């Protein structure tokens, strides 16, 4: 059971992020909510790749008969972090522009497009 704890934490993070998205109105907080979901998913990917007492998969430096860690999940997580950086930056940039036009960050007041 204790081995599953990281996954539970990830899902809690994802849930918190979704709850932020559903309950908050401020555009910056919405961006924070999305970042929370992202962190949860990234943590999930890293937790998948954990090997107990594993070493980095560099054959010349690894001690003999040591368990090695497959580097794929780390590579996936790095890629995902970079993508997350781009999306977060873009969302915040949009939020800044919206604030300049409307003078508010309240998502309930930014409803020009509806119907």
């Amino acid at each position, binding site marked *: 059971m204790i081995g599953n704890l990281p996954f539970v934490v990830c899902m809690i993070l994802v849930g918190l992020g979704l709850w932020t998205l*559903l309950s908050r*109105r401020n555009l910056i907080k919405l961006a924070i909510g999305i970042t929370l979901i992202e962190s949860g998913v990234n943590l999930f990917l890293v937790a998948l790749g954990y090997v107990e007492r594993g070493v980095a998969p560099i054959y010349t430096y690894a001690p003999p008969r040591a368990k090695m860690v497959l580097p794929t999940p780390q590579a996936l997580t790095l890629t995902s972090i970079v993508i997350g950086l781009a999306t977060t930056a873009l969302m915040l940039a949009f939020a800044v522009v919206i604030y300049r036009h409307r003078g508010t960050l309240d*998502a309930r007041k930014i*409803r020009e497009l*509806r*119907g």
Partner: protein
Amino acid sequence: MRLFTGEGHWSPLVWLALAAGVGFFAWLLWRWGRRTYKAGTEQDMPFLSGERAPEGAHVGAPHLYWGFLQGLRPVLEGLRAFHSGFVGDYVTWMVVLLAVALLVVVLT
């Protein structure tokens, strides 16, 4: 050229031939019409219930289907409210879709 559906088939060429026939009939009707018509005279004026229409009268798109829209009004108002423009609602509906998809997939 033909498209088979298992039940029947569809060929645009047959349709084009039929359309040509109908077009010919329409042309005959048109030939049958008044020969005293002249463009650029009073005969050009739009006819609105015997009244002389004001210059540049244009029935804009929002006036079309007025009765139909009036009849459907409760439904359409509901649809407008459904698309509220609040980004939190968008995400809520996505979560609903996700929940339905998960339920259908997991329960079957």
